[in-house]
């Protein structure tokens, strides 16, 4: 490891923050849930997840939370995701592939506009912490 200069220290800080910003809390713009039941995984949900994570990383987005859930109950339309913008109703997307995922990420998650052609509908089962 070469010795750092002042500028390099700032660079190391920025690089390191990319890896640790998840821990810092703060406002979340959107929550994306990838449905990863056996059916989802078999249909390619893993690729959807890694596409999503790499989009977040390459664009250095720090306020989108990624979570997953089990089977959403509509196994024939997997892979599926649910996009929940802060303060808005969740939207479900079906029959996904990496390209569709990228479009949804750019237009809906970041742009705030629902991609109607890939959407199943508005509304979702609750993925929050159970009440009791």
């Amino acid at each position: 490891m070469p010795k750092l200069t002042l500028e390099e220290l700032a660079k190391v800080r920025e690089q390191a923050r990319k890896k640790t910003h998840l821990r810092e809390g703060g406002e979340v713009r959107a929550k994306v849930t990838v449905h990863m039941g056996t059916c989802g995984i078999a249909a390619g949900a893993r690729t959807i997840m890694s596409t999503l994570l790499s989009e977040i990383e390459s664009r250095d987005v720090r306020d989108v939370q990624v979570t997953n859930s089990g089977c959403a109950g509509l196994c024939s339309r997997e892979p599926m995701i649910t996009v929940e913008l802060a303060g808005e109703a969740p939207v479900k997307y079906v029959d996904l592939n990496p390209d569709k995922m990228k479009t949804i990420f750019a237009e809906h998650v970041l742009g705030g506009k629902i991609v109607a052609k890939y959407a199943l509908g508005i509304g979702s089962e609750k993925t929050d912490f159970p009440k009791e």
Partner: protein
Amino acid sequence: MPEKHAETAHRLHLMVCAGTACVSNHSFAIKDALEKEIRKHGLENEVLVVTTGCNGFCERGPLLVVQPGNIFYQQLTVKDIPHLVEEHFLKGRPVSRLMYTPPKEKKPVPVLSDIDFFKKQVLIALRNRGLIDPEKIEESIARDGYKAMAKALTEMTPAQIIMEIKQSGLRGRGGAGFPTGLKWEMVRNAVSTNGGGKYLICNGDEGDPGAFMDRSILEADPHSVIEGMVIGAKAVGATEGVLYVRNEYPLAVKRLQIALAQAREYGLLGEDILGTKFSFDIKVHRGAGAFVCGEETALIASIEGRLGEPRPRPPYPAQSGLYGRPTLINNVETWANVPVIIDRGSSWFSSIGTETSKGTKVFSLVGKINNTGLVEVPMGITLREIIYDIGGGIPGGKAFKAVQTGGPSGGCIPADMIDLPIDYESLSQAGSMMGSGGMVVMDEDTCMVDVARYFLSFTKDESCGKCTPCREGTKIMFDILTRICEGRGTEADLELLESLAPSIKDSALCGLGKTAPNPVLTTLRYFRSEYEAHIRDKKCPAHVCRQLNTYTIDEKICLEAGHGCDVCRRNCASDAIRGEKNTAHSINQDKCIKCGVCLDVCKFHAVKVE
């Protein structure tokens, strides 16, 4: 594609506490189990396991905090992990069974920041608590580590640094509360008489029973201490530093050595730091664990390879310290505060706290309290807030009796002073002291004479023996207290204690002897009636001093509940119990040696103590 991102694009970070308390509760086994289950489910590119320093809520360890979301899991066992990984990390359903449920409540509190223990805390010295892996310098840098150092080295003059520390109002966190900026200025202005440079020391010789603040800081965030020291070195013009740590703190020593090596590799320590031409390096000195070595002159003697004994001051270490050179010595927590003051400014720091005591203080909260752990609170917070809001009150529905602050050098503050705001002045007016931050909570079952005796037995053993008042005085006070506890005390003993204690305080050589009488003086001041009960009535009101107890057996309970189970008779060492199976038992007081075994073994509460 996943391979490319294996290093970075995780969606969850699992922050496993690896402070000493959680480690001894097998948190490394939890970490291994987590990693194994995560691999089993193919989540290794999505979920990252991080080991952090002490989270603070030691009572509930081993601990795991899930980020983002700040979900707090506690008292985990390896058995819980497969279920947890499958439910929460694979299926996205947090497991409420493993969350924290406050005493007397039924619903768990999932989010860490909603838990009472954490709510009232303000983190400065512990700012990176639970958020970084202490063995990875990058994680510290991500949390602004070495940013203040860079500022101090490139933008500030030594005078400006000292002015900033002075204006912040920071006072030494090791015990005496000396203004830090003033001390720095003294070292800055001191001229080395033997031609060498100046030294800088971090005092990590934490020896109070029940105190673990410094250990936790060194284990959880060693870089904050190193950074503080480099800033101090620039301010006073020191080129060499020593980190004095007890050898009983192996994890702290290990993490410090890793941190020092990483800082050197990055050029943040050693020659020409950050290309600024300023050079400073630190070595770790492991102490053998003598309490008196926390005293600065004894600590310096110990580093020099001499017997760990204090010497008269002046000259103060600021004039003539390590190897006779001007030496700046501050405590671990003080050093950890320094970077934040430089980074955020003295006016921000001094906005926290009271008129005379600025900032925060870390306390290790132990004893008869529900939430044992490490807390950092703003100065001026009341004892009530610490004990009831953060500490969750006294377990088992018992009454709060007193709190001991400042370790063996401190005093006991009684229950009716529970609204006392905590700062250096209020604690010393109450006869106690801030000390390094030990806080031992006592309930109604505590005998205050016995407590004073316990602390005196500690200081008596730890007295180095160099000066007579401490060597002989602590021994005599201990003997008097022992007499009183055994029912052989007289009224004259109280007078003797009252005249002896102040003269030891006045005449002892160092802080150890000067403060050793404090537990006696405060218990006499606030709990005099307990001393009198021991002396006049030959009774211990809390039933702790067994020699003063009378043990009897309630024959009705013995026969009806226990059917004369005979366990007490078989365990009695002095054949003092009469009776046989299925008959009521009784104690022959002439033979009874008051060992209390019958009380301990009786399952039916038939043995009574008065």
